[in-house]
């Protein structure tokens, strides 16, 4: 069976469409809300969902995502419960969610303790399609790539503005699914502007790889998404979603999820070529 991520990007490329890829933290505020949000996001035009597995000591993340991880952990969330939630979601066989790739963002600290083999087996069995391990550089990722590939899972790797070009090619050669291009050096979080070097760097990368290139870190508005669309195959919206989700702590959860859905809907329309 073709991986859902590969299927997504070949479909989108044929339609000249960019992927909208929201990120959310599993279990913030609870797993029922996470499942509900995935449905809502997909309904509003999200093409792929990144699911953050909470970790106690994330070093790549800014205060918004770090706090969401800590909130989820305070509720005692376990990795096995997250896999169970995904499994249930896949078992519902809702047409749109069924074809939507779901990928995890997970620290290597968790994979190492859980056990690489067991983690990837459980991931694949739950219906996840790929993983991003932000603290596993290319030098350390050979075993993971091999075992993920054997299970039909994509290993999505990151390239950043500080990555030298030769190294970027090495990373691209060991990436599957898509390349996660980090638009700015630093931690996750929303930023006012996007750097000018971005166009040059991504254009160069595109001329050296067939893989889809998706841009993340610091994107929070429809206008930014529209500006980025010609450059890439998809945009990742992380902190902007998680920050809004934090509001679900003291407001009706369904209401907050619908609002985030509307916000993502605007960005989806900005990325749609037919909407001009």
């Amino acid at each position: 069976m073709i991986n859902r991520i590969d299927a997504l990007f070949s479909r989108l490329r044929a339609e000249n469409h960019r992927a909208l890829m929201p990120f959310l933290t599993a279990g913030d505020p609870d797993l029922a809300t996470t499942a509900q949000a995935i449905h809502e996001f997909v309904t509003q035009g999200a093409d792929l969902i990144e699911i953050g597995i909470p970790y106690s000591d994330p070093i790549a993340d800014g205060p918004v995502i770090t706090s969401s991880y800590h909130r989820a952990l305070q509720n005692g969330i376990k990795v096995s419960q997250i896999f169970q939630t995904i499994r249930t979601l896949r078992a519902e066989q809702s047409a749109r969610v069924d074809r939507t790739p779901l990928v995890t963002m997970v620290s290597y600290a968790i994979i190492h303790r859980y056990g690489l083999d067991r983690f990837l087996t459980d991931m694949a069995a739950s219906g996840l399609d790929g993983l991003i391990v932000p603290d596993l550089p290319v030098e350390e990722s050979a075993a993971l790539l091999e075992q993920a590939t054997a299970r039909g899972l994509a290993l999505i790797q990151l390239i950043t503005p500080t990555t030298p070009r030769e190294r970027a090619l090495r990373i691209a050669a060991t990436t599957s699914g898509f390349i996660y291009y980090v638009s700015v050096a630093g931690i996750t979080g929303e930023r006012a502007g996007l750097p000018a070097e971005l166009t040059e760097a991504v254009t160069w990368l595109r001329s050296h790889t067939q893989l889809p290139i998706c841009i993340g870190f610091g994107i929070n508005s429809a206008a930014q998404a529209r500006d980025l669309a010609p450059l890439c195959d998809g945009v990742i919206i992380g902190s902007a979603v998680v920050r809004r989700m934090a509001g679900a702590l003291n407001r009706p959860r369904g209401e907050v999820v619908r609002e985030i859905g509307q916000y993502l809907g605007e960005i989806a329309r900005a990325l749609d070529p037919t909407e001009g």
Partner: protein
Amino acid sequence: MSSAIIDQVRPNDSSVDRSLGDTADPGPDELGRFGGFGGRYVPETLIEALNQLTVAYAAAKVDPEFQGRLAGYLKTYVGRPSPLFHARRLTAHAGGAEIYLKREDLNHTGAHKINNAIGQVMLAERMGKSRVIAETGAGQHGVATATACALFGIDCTVYMGEEDIRRQKLNVFNMRTLGAKVVPVTTGSRTLRDATNEAMRDWMGSSRTTHYTIGSVVGPHPFPMIVRDFQSVIGREARAQCLETLGRLPDLVAACVGGGSNAAGIFAPFVADREVALVGAEAGGRGLKPGEHAASLTLGRPGVLHGSLSFVLQDDDGQTADVHSISAGLDYPGVGPEHGHWKETGRARYESIGDEEALEAYHLTARLEGILPALESSHALAQAQKEARRLGPGKVVVVCLSGRGDKDAYEVARLRGEPM
């Protein structure tokens, strides 16, 4: 040293001339591995900065001008070499091997942390970085870094957990007086591990202009190697002092282990001397239950934390566990990867010392030797007494007295229920 003392100790069974110490490559390999431990588990954004640091350090290490300047500061500013002191009354009390104290508490700023801080701030200057950041737990590394930055005229920012700021007001005041900016960290447990996360986050966005002066032999490669090398002055001196005053090597070297920098510093030059036992004392806290101690090597398992693979206290999902120790400097859920390697290979042994035992050693050293040791170092002093009793008369134990106890007076008074 009087000849009477030398007469009390029997010679080692080795006839090899060891005056040069260990000349073999101590590691790590080019991926930063000490055996199966170490490496780099950090975001891609940091890799280039770590590569630049590796190259810059390799050049500085063999640059006689850099090393000469460093040695000069260690002598005239830090006050090195620190003495090796024969603790006769503590020896008599323990009733066994002769106990010698390596007096890192006599260094400027009162602990071994300055050895590394000066070296790394000089490295920052050499790399043309205009800003230095650091994490600190109890504040000793923060004070040492703020001190070195003042000396070299470099902008300094120290990340410190809100909880530690509350417990260590004196060090916070001193860091600010020295010109450093102290940033309170309000995430997670608000202690050292959160301060480390925050410093790494800062560095992700600032590495072009900023050097991260990590305070222990932890973190991604090349930090564990750099910090060990800068701290190895402790072991090199101790080894030479033993040969000079006792005419032989010690039978055992003991040091406390949190992240493990003073232990790595005193152990490393003895690693090739197989007849010298190396013993690390971890924080046993209030007991062996999770959350009650910080004994990563004796009770933890291999795992990833703060960019390297070593022994870590984690739950079965890989979430870092809460830790406790009477001493803020040992209150850390991980440990340097080289210690993991030394444990695995049996080159060093690690034991845990509880809060009560450490406190007892603190009081004993004060009464018997007129020295107020840091609570961290008190763990090593407690372990050393056990080892001295076990080894028996005629043997020699060297303890790294890594810092002085002034900073702990308030905490000890609170525990004794005495108002200050």
